[in-house]
């Protein structure tokens, strides 16, 4: 039997590829059927949030509630509030500040005219999120009910996702040495509670919504109001909907 070196390499290459494909198929066979989580069916929900900046009073209740509920280290934020100040003669350059994330409220700063308002920010739980696409190990993912989560046991701490998020919603948690971000209070919403930020918000400026629940008022809301997502040009299919958002907000 004559075989050139080249042929041998090609043959052995094919052999290796086919073996791993077979292994993958075998894994699939072994994996079996999905079992239902107790009392909660992931396939029956698709979580989102509606934020109304015109209702936000910048009290910082959401920031503090999130910190308490989720043990967020001091100086880091899973949700935060920004104050925008836009002068009518310079719409292109809004002034934005967020002292300590809005944790302690906002000391008065502007006394002139112009438009000033608060914008609560958080993870947008994008249906097509850049952060999950860049993770090299499958430590960040979107759940079947539409929540982007991090598996802290699997996260290597490489920080790719922090760079990838167009909204700056992720941070490096110095306590766990992993990437960290809003979980949409997954531990609460899967047992029928609303998120900590929504629970603490005094003006309903933020409201949790379930797009798969036909009775959720979000359907009527989305039909009858003008809503916007942040950075739509990034095609992330963000699920945090802002009502009547000012064009200067990034």
């Amino acid at each position, binding site marked *: *039997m004559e*075989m050139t070196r080249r042929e*041998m390499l090609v043959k*052995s290459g094919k*052999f*290796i590829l086919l*073996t*791993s494909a077979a*292994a993958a198929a075998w*894994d699939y066979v072994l*994996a079996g059927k*999905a079992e239902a*989580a107790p009392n909660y069916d*992931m396939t029956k929900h698709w979580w989102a949030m509606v934020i109304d900046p*015109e*209702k*936000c*009073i*910048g*009290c*910082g*209740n959401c920031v503090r*509630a999130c910190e*308490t*509920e*989720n043990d967020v280290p001091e100086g880091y934020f899973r949700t935060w509030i920004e104050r*925008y*100040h836009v002068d009518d003669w310079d719409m292109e350059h809004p002034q934005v500040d967020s002292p300590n994330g809005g944790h302690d*409220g*906002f000391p*008065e700063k*502007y*006394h002139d005219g112009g438009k*000033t*308002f*608060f914008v609560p920010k958080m993870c947008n739980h994008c249906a097509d999120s850049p952060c999950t696409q860049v993770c090299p190990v*499958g*430590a*960040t*993912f*979107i*759940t*079947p009910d539409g929540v982007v*989560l991090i*598996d802290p*046991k*699997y996260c290597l701490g490489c920080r790719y996702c922090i760079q990838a998020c167009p909204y700056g919603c992720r941070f490096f948690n110095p306590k766990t040495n992993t990437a960290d971000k809003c*979980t949409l209070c*997954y*531990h*609460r919403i*899967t*047992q029928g*509670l*609303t998120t900590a930020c929504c*629970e*603490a*918000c*005094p*003006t309903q400026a933020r409201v949790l919504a379930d797009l798969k629940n036909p009775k959720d008022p979000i359907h009527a809301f989305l039909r009858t109001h003008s809503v916007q997502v942040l950075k739509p040009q990034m095609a992330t299919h963000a699920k945090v909907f802002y009502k009547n958002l000012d064009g200067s907000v990034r």
Partner: protein
Amino acid sequence: MKDFLRSIEHLLRVVLLLALGVIGFLVVRRMVIPAEFGKYGHFRPAALDEIRAHPVKFAGRQACEACHSDQADVKSKGKHANLGCEACHGALARHAEDPGSLVPKLPDTAVLCARCHEANQAKPKSFPQVKTAEHSSGLACNTCHKPHDPRIGG
């Protein structure tokens, strides 16, 4: 036959090595990939249960109202009707589970009310705001307003 085997012996060795390598790879792969990885997507399904096991700290207003119906009734008639109890009292799930284990400290109205009502240009114009220093002239807010139903004379 002997000649033939001999002439492909070097090939057999390579194949053997390769086979060993592939088996080794599969064994290691089995060991490092957690069970059920990929069941719901490209992630470890057990992570969901671990995240869901996080303790709840805000009990939610329904929980408070079950025991404190007096305050809930007063509040539901006033302008603070839409506020959750824990928007002012802070996270109290531990108290709601076992009231004796943690008796909440009552909020200090000097700090509490100003957080929401201190006048600020960025707040929506329709939201009731006061310059607290001028408005209360140093008195605690609850000398005149009842926190659960803040309307004067209500």
